[in-house]
């Protein structure tokens, strides 16, 4: 597979994040948390897989939350399309008593949830969340330094991890056997 110069590092329909992108995402979300300020931030890919969560939410498991964020985003996008009012980066807002929650798509591959205290001005928060979403989209859509000096992704150690040596299918089968027979 050749690196995609115009899009994020992708394997077929999926998304691959390299350490430099991870770091850039971490920095962008840390800045958002500090500047807003935000209580809690969750970044997922659009199929609902957790990329990162930051902030405090006692007892909250980000994994099921991420699946709901992705479902919520997909449903909202479809509603907007059916109503003829879809455009990229549309925000949805849920107002609460002590906190408000934004969800927004961050480019074609990511979904972002941001929770803020109810005393944070909504207009300010809206601008900051949108800016952050754009920054995140740019991070994953720009080829990372790790891939820029390779003639193809098949040169990478990561790639060899997926393709080389043992038969991964069998290894996954064994791992599932072990999981199933644990209880």
């Amino acid at each position, binding site marked *: 597979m050749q690196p995609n110069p115009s899009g994020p590092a992708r394997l077929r329909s999926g998304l691959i994040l390299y350490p430099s992108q991870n770091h850039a995402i971490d920095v962008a979300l840390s800045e958002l948390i500090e500047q807003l300020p935000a209580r809690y931030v969750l970044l997922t890919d659009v199929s609902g897989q957790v990329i990162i969560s930051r902030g405090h939410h006692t007892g909250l498991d980000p994994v099921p939350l991420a699946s709901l964020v992705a479902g919520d985003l997909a449903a909202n996008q479809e509603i907007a399309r059916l109503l003829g009012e879809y455009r990229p980066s549309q925000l949805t807002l849920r107002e609460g008593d002590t906190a408000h929650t934004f969800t927004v798509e961050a480019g074609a591959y990511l979904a972002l949830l941001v929770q803020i205290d109810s005393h944070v001005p909504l207009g300010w928060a809206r601008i900051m969340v949108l800016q952050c979403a754009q920054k995140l989209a740019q991070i994953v859509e720009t080829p990372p330094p790790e891939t820029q000096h390779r003639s193809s992704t098949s040169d990478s150690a990561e790639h060899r991890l*997926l393709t080389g040596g043992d038969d991964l299918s069998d290894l996954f089968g064994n791992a599932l056997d072990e999981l199933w027979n644990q209880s």
Partner: protein
Amino acid sequence: MYINWQLRELNLKIVYYGPALSGKTTNLEQIYNRVPADRRSELISLKTHEDRTLFFDFLQLELGKINGLTPKLHLYTVPGQTYYEASRKLVLRRADGVVFVADSDPARVRDNLESWRNMQAHLKEFGTSLDSIALVVQFNKQDLPGALAPTVYAPLMGLHHYPVIKAIAIQRIGVFETLKAITQRVIANVQRHAAPSGTLDQKHQPLETPYNTPARTGRMQP
């Protein structure tokens, strides 16, 4: 699929698709009940008041380290009722693999076919074909009187090109075999697409498990 090389995580999305009441949610419930709590997430179910799937069910499984990677399987179901067409399509988006759960009730042949064609149409809209996505067919409710024999119905329904697994999900029979078969097919697909063209194709012919049939013959083990 989402890969995070820093965390060495490989995330895969598998969708259980099929007609209403065919047992998609039951499959996930049985997996949830069997797998130790520290290796799975909570089971999320978005249901109607009548206990029918409204949007999706979701369950994440975490496998042990493989080649230094921590694989995570994200299992989703779609709502089966015809009414929820739009939701079904959304859940199917970006799936790495699909389990088609057919209802073995002889009265539901048409529902199975309609759901299958519906799935095919959605995949096509996403630019995916049945040939390129990892797919496993489960004939569930094999305990019903006069249950559809996959050896007969899989070819009739055009499903004989895929691994077919007999199941009684409510008794957990065939549930794990289905999960294992689809996971292995997804991984074979990942390898095929990651490999220089042609190098892995010969290694990854359709799978044979104790419950499925060699794909080309339509035979099933009892």
